[in-house]
């Protein structure tokens, strides 16, 4: 299996600290808006030339945030975050909003090249379509630096741009849907995001359109002491389809950085959204110093009948992950899916899972969660499956598997199941296993090295979820998982 071999080669090429995206781009940057205040919000809103209603929306969120208390129910611990010590705006100086590729600062292009993100739009040569074309929205600190393939997507009627641009160009669409899935006061971090969100992606797929290529956003935090608060909004109109990928990395820094994002998905009648994430924020060093605090609210609303939303996530980074991509199954016959691989090593803490809220009739959902813990990490699956009174014939299948590597890590499963309708059928299966010494010895006896053996066994463990990822992402994810576990067997 070539992916395993490539993994090993890649692992070996990496230094003691395995995080390979830890470099800092040396670019002149404009930082502003220190501290969480009305001025900060007004400054942000003005920077983005936002309409008046948006500024008010933000200020309202800020006022509500000030009255909220930080939640403490998750199985994670960290020192209190001083929101007044953070910068809420950081932008490479050369960027004045997204523009065409040839105007982008070469230093930025080099950064994305180093990260392996193709920003160049491959030309269509003599009518031969290059394979696997992906349109990318690249977000660097607080701003979107470029969005590729915009013109081509426009021909299909697809809108793909930064949320800042959408606020200016398509204010009615944004106003109609923003906050309609994740309300301003949904939770502490969502409220914070509503007040100070900087940039993110906006997607609108018109009625009956199958988006001609994969869309993706690539988030990069570069600046120090800066929070990244992106906001993504995806709307799939009736009968449309879109597959969207999201990737994230950050430099290796000693202090913790905050990332609090909100993602809202809306699927109308017969529409389908497939949302895949490969999250690889800096996880902190071997002593548990530094790393990203990742507090994310992701929710999809299957608003129309027969609609479908599927979340696939591969979580390998961040010092703390607090994330529950969820589906509201409002439309009759709608379907929600959640496929997750969460890998924790070192001192990482993960509290992640999903919520499947069955409201409509004949709604179905499926949850497959694979947690892998190594080092001194803690890995918790927390999930809610609920059927409301009118959700007749709701069905859910949940499978939660945990794999432990070593003696000092922990895995926890916290499922909540509520059913107010007697015809609902919910199934829950859970397993916890270890990579056994016998498995390791068997593999070594056949000639595999220790790293190869762990890579093989872990890849086998996560196979059901990897299969859900878009092809080129799947290979990446396999490599990433193995790299994250490097050094976990000793």
């Amino acid at each position: 299996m070539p992916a395993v071999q490539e993994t090993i080669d890649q692992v070996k090429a990496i230094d003691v600290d395995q995080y390979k995206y830890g470099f800092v781009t040396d670019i002149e940057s404009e930082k502003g808006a220190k501290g969480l205040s009305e001025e900060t919000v007004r400054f942000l809103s003005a920077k983005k030339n936002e309409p008046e209603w948006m500024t008010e929306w933000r200020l309202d969120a800020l006022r509500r945030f000030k009255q909220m208390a930080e939640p403490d129910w998750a199985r994670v611990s960290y020192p209190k975050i001083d929101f007044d010590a953070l910068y809420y705006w950081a932008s490479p100086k050369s960027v004045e909003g997204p523009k065409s590729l040839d105007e982008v600062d070469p230093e930025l292009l080099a950064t994305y090249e180093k990260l392996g993100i193709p920003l160049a739009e491959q030309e269509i040569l003599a009518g031969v379509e290059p394979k696997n074309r992906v349109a990318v929205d690249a977000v660097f600190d607080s701003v979107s630096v470029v969005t590729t393939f915009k013109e081509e997507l426009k021909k299909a009627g697809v809108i793909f741009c930064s949320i800042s641009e959408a606020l200016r160009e398509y204010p009615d669409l944004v106003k109609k849907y923003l906050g309609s899935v994740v309300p301003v006061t949904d939770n502490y971090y969502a409220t914070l995001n509503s007040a100070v969100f900087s940039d993110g992606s906006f997607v609108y797929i018109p009625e009956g359109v199958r988006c001609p290529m994969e869309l993706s956003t690539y988030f990069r935090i570069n600046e120090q002491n800066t929070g990244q608060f992106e906001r993504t909004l995806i709307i799939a109109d009736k009968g449309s389809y879109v597959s969207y990928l999201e990737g994230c990395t950050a430099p290796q820094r000693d202090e913790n950085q905050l990332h609090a994002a909100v993602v809202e998905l809306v699927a109308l009648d017969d529409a389908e959204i497939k949302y895949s994430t490969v999250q690889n924020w800096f996880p902190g060093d071997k002593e548990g110093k530094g790393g990203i605090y990742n507090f994310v609210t992701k929710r999809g609303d299957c608003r129309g009948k027969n609609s479908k939303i599927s979340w696939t996530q591969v979580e390998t980074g961040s010092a703390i992950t607090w994330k529950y991509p969820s589906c509201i199954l409002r439309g009759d016959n709608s379907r929600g899916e959640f496929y997750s691989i969460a890998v924790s090593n070192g001192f990482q803490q993960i509290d992640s899972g999903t919520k499947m809220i069955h409201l409509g009739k004949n709604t179905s959902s499926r949850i497959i969660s694979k947690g892998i813990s190594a080092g001194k990490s803690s890995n918790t699956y927390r999930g809610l499956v609920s059927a409301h009174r009118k959700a007749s014939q709701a069905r859910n299948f949940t499978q939660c598997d945990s794999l432990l590597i070593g003696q000092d890590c922990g895995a926890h499963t916290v499922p909540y199941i509520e059913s107010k309708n007697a015809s609902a059928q919910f199934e829950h299966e859970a397993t916890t296993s270890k990579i056994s010494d016998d498995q390791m010895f068997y593999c070594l006896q056949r000639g595999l090295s220790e790293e190869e053996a762990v890579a093989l066994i872990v890849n086998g463990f996560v196979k059901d979820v990897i299969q859900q990822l878009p092809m080129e992402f799947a290979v990446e994810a396999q490599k990433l998982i193995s790299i994250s576990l490097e050094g976990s067997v000793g």
Partner: protein
Amino acid sequence: MLEIKNLHARIAEDETEILRGIDLTVKAGEVHAIMGPNGSGKSTLSYILAGKDDYEVTEGEILFNGENMLDMEPDERAAAGMFLAFQYPIEIPGVATMEFLKTALNAQRKARGEEALSIPDFMKMVKSKAADLNVTMDMLKRPLNVGFSGGEKKRSEILQMALLEPKLCVLDETDSGLDIDALRIVSEGVNKLRSPERAMVVITHYQRLLDHIVPDVVHVLSKGKIVKTGDKDLALELEKNGYADFVNAA
């Protein structure tokens, strides 16, 4: 090929002594059978040859083609040509048997400084060897040993042996859990691998396996020592009289 000199070993965890001075020399081309009652140390010997770290060698040495085998890691021993067919093959969920075979073969080739096999060449090789052992394509697609019957597990072990082409094959109770037909298929597979360049150590309780895989030399192991060595007739004698005489003699 294999030289074991005055080998003493114990369980690392509780220091229980298992092997108490084993001397054994196996030359290329030879098949040696090691028989003995339960608890005589047969499986321990096979694990120590493969390098399992649950055991500690307290005295003696093992030479594999003149090299000190005890200095080598399990994967290095494998790449050098040491193969252990397990009594209880281990399950690896989610990893297709085919994928495992390829990973193992290429890992060994790499360790020896050889090129990885191309996929078509590999497939051709697997298909022909699998057919001999009655291993179907369907079985190769299933996760390794997961839900395999006793016979399937042992056939898969021998298929791995055929594919990896080791110099020294140690078969640990390969006959356990096999019905008569499976025993015949597995034995034929093993016999096909007999060659002047290859040595085999066949560990078993019962003579019946040795009707199929006829050994050049038979040893009786009791209480961690080889107490008797003879030709294939020794196995027949054991079958008739049991181990009691030897156990008492030791």
